[in-house]
């Protein structure tokens, strides 16, 4: 079974630029999560999708972050414009059920904003 795929693995941008991350979850997993993990901290949930609907986006900075999962499969997370404090690893995870009892994580995208 293929795991959660993410791209790119690394990205370096300057502040005020835009960046987009892509995630393809495990086939058949209805629930998809985007997390932000700042160095030395645990993952913080940004947004959770159930199929193509949003379950929770209360911690997503909506003035600069956006995410979509149009066909209920893969997803894109965008930051526009980026700030220095957005430097982090962005993790995508998926789970079969909405309760997310077991989440399967991708390798993450490491973002550095200069």
């Amino acid at each position: 079974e293929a795991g959660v795929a993410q791209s790119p693995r690394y990205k370096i941008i300057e502040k005020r630029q835009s960046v987009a991350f892509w995630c393809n979850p495990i086939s058949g997993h209805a629930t998809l999560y985007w997390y932000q993990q700042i160095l030395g901290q645990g993952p913080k949930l940004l947004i959770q999708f159930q199929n193509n609907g949003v379950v929770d986006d209360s911690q997503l900075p909506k003035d600069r972050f956006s995410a979509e999962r149009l066909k209920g499969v893969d997803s894109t997370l965008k930051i526009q414009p980026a700030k220095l404090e957005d430097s982090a690893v962005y993790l995508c995870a998926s789970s079969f059920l909405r309760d997310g009892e077991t989440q399967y994580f991708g390798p993450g995208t490491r973002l550095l904003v200069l």
Partner: protein
Amino acid sequence: SQQGEEDPQALSIQEGENATMNCSYKTSINNLQWYRQNSGRGLVHLILIRSNEREKHSGRLRVTLDTSKKSSSLLITASRAADTASYFCAMRSGGSYIPTFGRGTSLIVHP
């Protein structure tokens, strides 16, 4: 949303020794999970324990849950250098479908 707190923040042991890390939380939970994260990688699910369970085992892993103390512990027996990683607890509470993670324990196992 609540966040678990792992203790200690860092742990350094020799291969073959046991490693114990703890997670405390603030409000009632539905279940608690432990994840491992190797450097530069995503998280890997290790074990889930439900609120009505007290202990679970998986290979060299033993997880306990004390709901009266609002705490859980992860024990890795006979540790190996490959166990070097960060370990996180994650929990769901109340009717929330949203899991929240602690800050993690960084474990180093010296060969």
